[in-house]
């Protein structure tokens, strides 16, 4: 690792200025929990590092009434300790709570989880379920991209070398809707997700699904919506039988997507309890709201 220049900057303007100047030779560092390892292993060899961890503007969670805006530099610890994610946004709380270890959560940021593009990034499936939009800034201004599209179509929506991820925002769900999350790791702490499932659910008085979104992590090249199972569940009454059938629908999607992968037989079985847990937690919460 041979860095020629390091910058600890205080404003977004300074960052985009530096990105414009150094382009592919520069890398952004925030919490450093992924990038320092990549530098050490020489997986990346930038000439310049730009540290954004001291930019106040990137470190706040804003309740803007209808929307919640999370700065890209907000750490997982900050999300876990925020009162905003304790009720029907529990799924985001839970996902962030299960990231790494206390030390990793203290430094790792939600923006880093997105910018690194790991298929196993824990916070992404819940954010996709919420229909989150990300804001990217460059010297030429800002643009907004739907998080789901960002992953699906990197060529058109992915981050350019002169861009900085600034914030993530999503519409606050109404009280009758809930975000939940389940993760399968191989141990309790410091576990990379083998599978994660997030669901966003709304039921009518009869227990029929009026809104459902399902997003998965580690079930493809990137975190994604599981549209087949969403379509299957929409309008149905959520009972054991429906959930059993929904699991089969997810497995069918996986069979196509993960064809030939050595992990498929394992993940096929493991996905059952993840979907059950995520949907189950959602139903439990909504039962409490309706009761």
């Amino acid at each position, binding site marked *: 690792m041979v860095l020629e220049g*390091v910058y600890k900057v205080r404003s977004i303007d300074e960052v985009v200025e530096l990105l414009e100047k150094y382009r592919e030779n520069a890398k952004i560092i925030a919490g450093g929990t992924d990038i*320092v*390892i990549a530098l*050490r292993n020489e997986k990346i060899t930038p000439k310049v590092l730009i540290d954004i961890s001291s930019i106040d503007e990137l470190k706040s969670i804003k309740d803007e009434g209808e929307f919640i805006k999370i700065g890209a530099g907000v750490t997982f610890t900050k999300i876990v300790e925020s009162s905003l994610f304790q009720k029907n946004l529990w799924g985001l709380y839970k996902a962030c709570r299960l990231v790494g*270890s206390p*030390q990793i959560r*203290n*430094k790792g940021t939600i923006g880093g989880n997105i910018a690194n593009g790991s298929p196993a990034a824990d916070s992404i499936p819940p954010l996709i379920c919420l229909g989150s939009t990300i804001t990217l800034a460059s010297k030429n201004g800002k643009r907004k991209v739907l998080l789901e599209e960002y992953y699906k179509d990197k060529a058109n929506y992915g981050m350019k070398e002169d861009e900085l991820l600034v914030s993530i925002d999503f519409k606050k769900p109404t009280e009758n809707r809930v975000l939940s999350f389940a993760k399968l790791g191989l141990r309790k702490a410091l576990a990379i997700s083998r599978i994660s499932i997030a669901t966003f659910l709304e039921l009518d008085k009869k227990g029929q699904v009026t809104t459902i979104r399902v997003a998965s992590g580690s079930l493809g090249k990137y975190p994604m919506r599981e549209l087949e199972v969403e379509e299957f569940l929409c309008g149905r009454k959520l009972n054991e039988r429906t959930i059993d059938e929904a699991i089969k629908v997810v497995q069918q999607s996986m069979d196509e997507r993960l064809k030939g992968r050595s992990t498929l037989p394992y993940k096929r079985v493991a996905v059952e309890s993840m979907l059950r847990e995520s949907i189950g937690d959602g139903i439990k919460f909504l039962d409490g709201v309706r009761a």
Partner: protein
Amino acid sequence: MKDIKLNVNGKDYTLNVDENIKLLGLLRDELGLTGAKEGCGEGECGACTVIMDGETVNSCLVMAFQADGSNILTIEGLEQNGELHPIQQAFIDVGAVQCGYCTPGMIMSVKALLDKNTNPTREEIREGISGNLCRCTGYNKIVDAAELSIKYLEEGRR
């Protein structure tokens, strides 16, 4: 080289650091504070744990230049006037130290936990040290020591 200012264990430093070194290297090689150790170098083991601006971090994953303007507390900064910190004393009294390699990191994690939560349950203690590995597997004694340190700290406050 880059000029940085930081406070370590209550002392202000102005240093000229290599762009490529980590906070762990700065503490050990520049300041001679060898309590924090490099175990895995990738944030799995927690042997390099120090407290940065009130929160535990893996100092092997923080670039030294990033620590500009920060407050760092290492195991060396815990004792006061030649007396061990109650958490350190509890680790000794319980016998929670085997080979000792993980101990500085463990103690810093316990310290950060007790700073936020003065009376954690055993489960919360386990969660609090979940980013620290003990290859001697002395976890029960370590949790016992954390519990005893809660008592010591309470007595100290009285």
